[in-house]
């Protein structure tokens, strides 16, 4: 049964294509900037213990569940999360939970494509020498703040006289993303990822070789940089075991795994819905996760922090956030590094590739709903989604002061809603689909056999683990002082934050309406099929 309308159902062309597409969705800025920053900040190498535990207990099992549920819905004619949830859970409310699977990727796309445009612009600026600002760190900071419009709302649109470079870069990124998504699953996403992922890894290896062969600078060697990143107990002092007792580190390590693998985004479930009945999911899911981990630990973990440490020392690296590390610290490092202009432009280009493969995947879930639920053709669905996301991205670009709109969206959608969606999907797999059926789904057509223990982990351990992390995180956020960025209090204090949440609400309502129309259409199709059978 194909409920998507008249068009033939799309599918992946090759197995390695879908693996690279899911890997591309997962590999992003977090692998090269957020992970090394967190690992160095929280106890150095000790961070890797909770990190790998979370990978094995939460990350990989959740990915298997999402892949299996996606294929389960796909072979029953659905590619959108509302449709897939409806095939698994036969309740009227089920498809409406799919609104999270719509707004999470769509709203993340709205601000992520803006960050993607920074990577593209910085690759250009580094290659053309426009980022050669000397040794003064404040110059790099003010360049970045001016580029992203941190000084005032509307600065990028009406402030600088003419169209700002950030807006031009954003327009290029929009065109690239929508041109690829228009070409479809196999000809667009798959072909691009088959080319982009190996190129990304090649670029990262070239940058890695340059970093690992750096000569000492002002008495600091690469080994010192690696030591800053990997030596245990850098923060609390004392023994390795004392480092492991840091609860905040466990929270951060689990969060890093959770966000890095793209589970709970509504993306994997959509991608895997284009698989065929007996296509492998067990090995494919594991391979895409392994690829993401390789990019994060073996490439990101050896490049960013060691390079920054060699040239800037602890003072230049410690306590830097993800954006500051990527767009303030590293440009300064590349100016001092031998061959820095080439290596720097290559690094920002690989960040751009990583961002495109991720942003591309964020568009497909909504396209799937428009095609699968409303029977809209590819051209019309791409145009509709283009219009919705353009409004959202312009909202983020306009309210650029202190990146308030971007940060607010990232908090409520990029963190809060992802936790909720992942928990819902875990319960859907473990308690609604059930361990027996669920494990059969994971193992059908599998090139490796996943033990039944994973089913019990998904049913009992993962929801509790996720719930505990979510509640702890929520408690911390609610009690965070206002001056350190309390997103609950900012709803009352900041009109832009309140407006952003209202905007999220409007997008959610739009998707609830589209889901309601889709459900109506699916019921009509089912009724017609029933009449034909009789």
């Amino acid at each position, binding site marked *: 049964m194909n409920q998507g309308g008249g068009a033939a159902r799309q599918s992946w062309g090759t*197995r*390695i294509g879908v*693996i690279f597409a899911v890997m591309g969705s997962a590999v992003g800025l977090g692998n090269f900037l957020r992970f090394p920053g967190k690992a160095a900040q929280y106890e*150095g*190498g*000790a961070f*890797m213990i909770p990190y*790998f535990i979370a990978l094995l207990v939460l990350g990989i099992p959740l990915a298997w569940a999402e892949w299996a549920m996606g294929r389960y819905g796909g072979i029953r004619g659905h590619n959108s999360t509302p449709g897939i949830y409806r095939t698994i859970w036969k309740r009227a409310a089920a498809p409406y939970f799919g609104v999270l699977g719509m707004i999470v990727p769509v709203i993340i796309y709205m601000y992520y494509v803006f960050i993607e445009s920074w990577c593209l612009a910085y690759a250009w600026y580094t290659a053309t020498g426009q980022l050669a600002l000397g040794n003064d760190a404040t110059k790099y900071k003010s360049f970045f703040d001016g580029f992203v419009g941190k000084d005032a709302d509307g600065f990028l649109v009406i402030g600088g006289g003419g169209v700002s470079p950030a807006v031009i870069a954003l327009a290029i990124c929009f065109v690239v993303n929508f041109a690829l998504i228009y070409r479809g699953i196999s000809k667009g996403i798959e072909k691009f990822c088959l080319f982009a992922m190996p190129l990304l890894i090649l670029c990262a290896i070239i940058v890695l070789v340059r970093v690992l062969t750096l000569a000492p600078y002002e008495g600091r060697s690469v*080994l*010192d940089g*690696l*030591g800053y*990143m*990997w*030596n*245990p107990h850098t923060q609390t002092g004392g023994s*390795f075991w004392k480092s492991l007792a840091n609860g905040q580190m466990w929270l951060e390590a689990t969060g890093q795994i959770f966000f890095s693998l793209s589970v709970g985004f509504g993306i994997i479930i959509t991608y895997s819905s284009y698989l065929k009945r*007996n296509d*492998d999911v067990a*090995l*494919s899911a*594991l*391979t895409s996760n*392994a*690829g993401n*981990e*390789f990019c*994060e*630990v*073996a490439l990101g*973990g*050896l490049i960013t922090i060691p390079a920054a440490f060699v040239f800037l020392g602890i003072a230049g690296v410690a306590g830097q956030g993800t954006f500051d590390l990527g767009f303030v610290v590293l440009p300064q490092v590349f100016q001092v590094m031998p061959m820095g202009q080439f290596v720097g432009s290559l690094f920002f280009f690989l960040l751009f590739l990583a961002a495109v493969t991720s942003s591309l995947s964020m568009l497909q879930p909504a396209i799937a709903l428009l095609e699968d639920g409303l029977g809209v053709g590819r051209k019309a669905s791409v145009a509709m989604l283009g219009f919705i996301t353009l409004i959202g991205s312009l909202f983020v670009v306009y309210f650029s002061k202190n990146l308030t709109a971007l940060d607010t969206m990232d908090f409520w959608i990029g963190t809060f809603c992802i936790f909720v969606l992942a928990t819902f999907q875990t319960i859907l797999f473990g308690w609604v689909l059930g361990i027996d059926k669920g494990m059969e789904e994971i193992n059908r057509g599998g*090139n*490796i056999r996943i033990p039944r223990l994973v089913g019990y982990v998904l049913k009992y351990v993962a929801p509790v683990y996720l719930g505990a992390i979510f509640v702890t995180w929520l408690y911390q956020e609610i009690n965070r002082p206002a001056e350190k960025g309390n997103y609950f209090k900012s709803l009352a204090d900041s009109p832009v934050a309140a407006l952003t949440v209202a905007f999220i609400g409007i997008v959610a309502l739009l998707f609830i309406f589209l889901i309601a129309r889709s459900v109506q259409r699916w019921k009509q199709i089912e009724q017609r099929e029933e009449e034909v059978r009789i």
Partner: protein
Amino acid sequence: MTTGGWTIMVLSVGFVTVLLAWCLYKVFTHSATEVHAPPQIDPHDREK
């Protein structure tokens, strides 16, 4: 860099590298030698 740092770095980088290499080996060897069982082969003759 301390012994602890070396140990954790080598184990971490080694684990993810070996895992990826093993997965890719399995993916490529299975693709090349995959034999479809009879139920997976659709002869397209059901209507006849």
